[in-house]
């Protein structure tokens, strides 16, 4: 007798094979654009040269097969102290907030604005405090430091304010070296960082089938330093990929496979994640709705292909296109988190995010945390704890005329149910009214305040944080910024 973890099946085994095999044909017959010299020379050295007629790199299927053999099926990511924080592979689900928002929703003012250093600190602190988030993301871009060092600065703030690993990425090619040095400083040194990586680097190919200089370099740099690379392929149906969902999944597979090939050529066996941020392109508005159910279907379906290929998976889900924390925001985020959990996506990025991945909200971050808690609970399924399942318990309960006082109840009730924070209203009408009759966003705003005033992340070792500061100040000076913004 055993219970199943609930899972969505998207394709038959035969279709999964057909999609992967067509993706391999796309790379062999059409090829990819590569704008990075190092990637080109790696590919060329392995027998995938540039086709003189169309300038595209044709990748033989043998290269894809070899890359899939060397790429690991399990990727571990660690916290500041070297403890496992994410065990990516199988159907294990982890959540982290959506990354790289240009705006933050200011609840008091009722509108989005440009984030500043204090917002980054609050964002990192909240993620550190909330247990259903397995990792930090460098989710907000600070408007009070120069754009050229925005990528380094957001990592700096995350490392100072949290022990959790960080999902991050570069905006400029030269940023990787500095970010790697910051991470190595926290981990101890470059070798320890390679052994127990504390960050994941997002690498985004441009649809269709193109690797820009920046993203190809990020992929190679990540491979060589042993930091897990996360492929973020983003076909837009009918705009930058075929309009069919199956067509988008197939193009996504080809883009991911090409990334895995470049990455494994740079360093065979280096950790890599099969991921993306596709969208069902909106033909009315010309936008990229992350909250469209079809977007989530593409995500769940490609995760199944990633599993078929034996690579850990990632998707941008549990986020919303709404411009504020409202019904739509909750609906889309919950639907995404649910589908992600039921698809067994290993790393789900998205919580907190509004407005097509462009606006973070602290209030939404704490509300989404409860969505993630419920989604994680859902994905673990219904446990069979007793055999027989109920008969003796019912006999016992009948004798006592209730089940509350049963030792069996006390033993299991906390394991059977996830207890959300009280921002999720389960009170009686009377209690709800007596506490001001407030809506979820309002309750969340109060929780944000309480968490921020009552929680202090474990501080970094003094020498380590001094070294990070030195690195960051050096970067800032290079852009002409003499002093970094004060940290509260």
């Amino acid at each position, binding site marked *: 007798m055993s219970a199943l973890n609930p899972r969505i099946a998207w394709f038959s085994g035969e279709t999964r094979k057909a999609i992967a095999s067509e993706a391999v044909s796309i790379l062999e017959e059409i090829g990819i654009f590569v704008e990075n010299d190092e990637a080109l020379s790696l590919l060329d050295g392995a027998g995938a040269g540039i086709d003189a007629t169309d300038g595209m790199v044709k990748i033989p299927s043998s290269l894809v097969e070899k890359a899939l053999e060397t790429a690991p099926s399990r990727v571990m990511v660690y916290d500041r102290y070297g403890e496992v924080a994410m065990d990516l592979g199988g159907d294990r689900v982890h959540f982290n907030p959506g990354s790289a928002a*240009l705006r933050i929703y200011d609840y008091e003012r009722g509108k989005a604005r440009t984030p500043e250093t204090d917002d980054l600190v609050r964002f990192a602190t909240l993620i550190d405090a909330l247990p259903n988030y397995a990792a930090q993301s460098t989710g907000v871009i600070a408007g009070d430091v120069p754009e050229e060092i*925005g990528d380094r600065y957001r990592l700096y703030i995350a490392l100072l304010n949290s022990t959790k690993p960080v999902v991050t990425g570069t905006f400029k090619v030269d940023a990787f070296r500095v970010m790697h040095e910051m991470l190595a400083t926290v981990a101890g040194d470059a070798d320890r960082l390679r052994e127990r990586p504390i960050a994941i680097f997002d690498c985004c190919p441009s649809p269709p089938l193109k690797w*820009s200089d920046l993203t190809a370099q990020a992929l190679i740099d990540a491979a060589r330093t042993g930091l897990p690379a996360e492929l973020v392929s983003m076909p837009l149906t009918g705009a*930058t990929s075929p309009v069919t969902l199956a067509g988008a999944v197939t193009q996504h597979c080809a883009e991911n496979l090409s990334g895995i090939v470049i990455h494994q050529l740079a360093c065979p066996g280096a950790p890599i994640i099969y991921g993306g941020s596709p969208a069902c392109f909106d033909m*009315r508005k*010309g936008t990229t709705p992350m909250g469209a159910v079809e977007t989530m279907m593409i995500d769940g379906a490609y995760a199944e292909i990633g599993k078929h290929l034996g690579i850990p998976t990632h998707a941008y889900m549990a986020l919303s296109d709404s411009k504020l924390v409202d019904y739509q925001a909750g609906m889309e985020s919950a639907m995404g988190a649910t589908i992600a959990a039921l698809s067994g996506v290993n790393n789900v990025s998205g919580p907190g995010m509004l407005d097509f991945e462009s606006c973070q909200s602290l209030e939404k971050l704490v509300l989404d945390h409860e969505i993630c808690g419920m989604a994680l609970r859902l994905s673990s399924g219904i446990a069979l704890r007793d055999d027989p399942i109920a008969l003796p318990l019912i006999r016992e309960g009948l004798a006592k005329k209730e089940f509350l006082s049963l030792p069996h109840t006390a033993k299991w009730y906390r394991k059977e149910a996830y207890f959300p924070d009280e921002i999720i209203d389960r009170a009686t009408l009377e209690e709800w009214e007596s506490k001001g009759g407030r809506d979820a966003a309002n309750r969340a705003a109060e929780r944000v305040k309480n968490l921020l005033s009552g929680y202090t992340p474990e501080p970094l070792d003094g020498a380590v944080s001094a070294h990070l500061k030195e690195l960051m100040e050096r970067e800032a000076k290079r852009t002409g910024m003499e002093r970094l913004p004060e940290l509260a």
Partner: protein
Amino acid sequence: MDEFLKSCAQSIIDGDGDVAETLAKQAVDDGAPLIDVIEKGFAAGIREVGRLWGEGEMFLPELVMGAEAMKRAMAILEPSIAGSGGLKEAAGRVVIGTIEGDIHDIGKTLVATMLSANGFEITDLGADVPAGRFVDEAEEKRADCIAISALLTTTMNGQKKVIEELENRSIRGQVKVMVGGAPCNDEWAKEIGADGYAGDAVAAVALARSLVD
């Protein structure tokens, strides 16, 4: 003749490039008044497409197919008009592109397609275009207007650089500048001294017309 003009318009509304091309050839072969064929036929069709899109009746694929059909008809009609010494001139010359650092191409291409379908002569520089290159091309093509797209708040400052470059070369007065893209709005256009902002491809056509007139 009215029936013929109606079917020209309808071919654009249907987004049927094959029919549009056949009708255009027929007009040339029959020696029909081509300016009328364009203005009262095909162009009436593309205006109707724009209207239907504005009202939410049509979505982007129908809009783009209408514009593509329009381009195919015009490709046949234009040489014949030029050959006959006709009066048809481009509605204006526009240099268009997505600003440096920004690889978002779709919105810009849509605007270029709609402008072209509405009789503008378009030089599409693609995406990730440095400010200087907009100005170089505008000078070379003697453009009436530069259209700059930016999809990121981190790249929209580049739109301002194009205007500064025009000022540096003392030719700001000779060319209009229109901006578009997700983070832009009227306020932003004013702030950087652009001549206008358009929120979508149909609005961009109306704006370009008003700027060039």
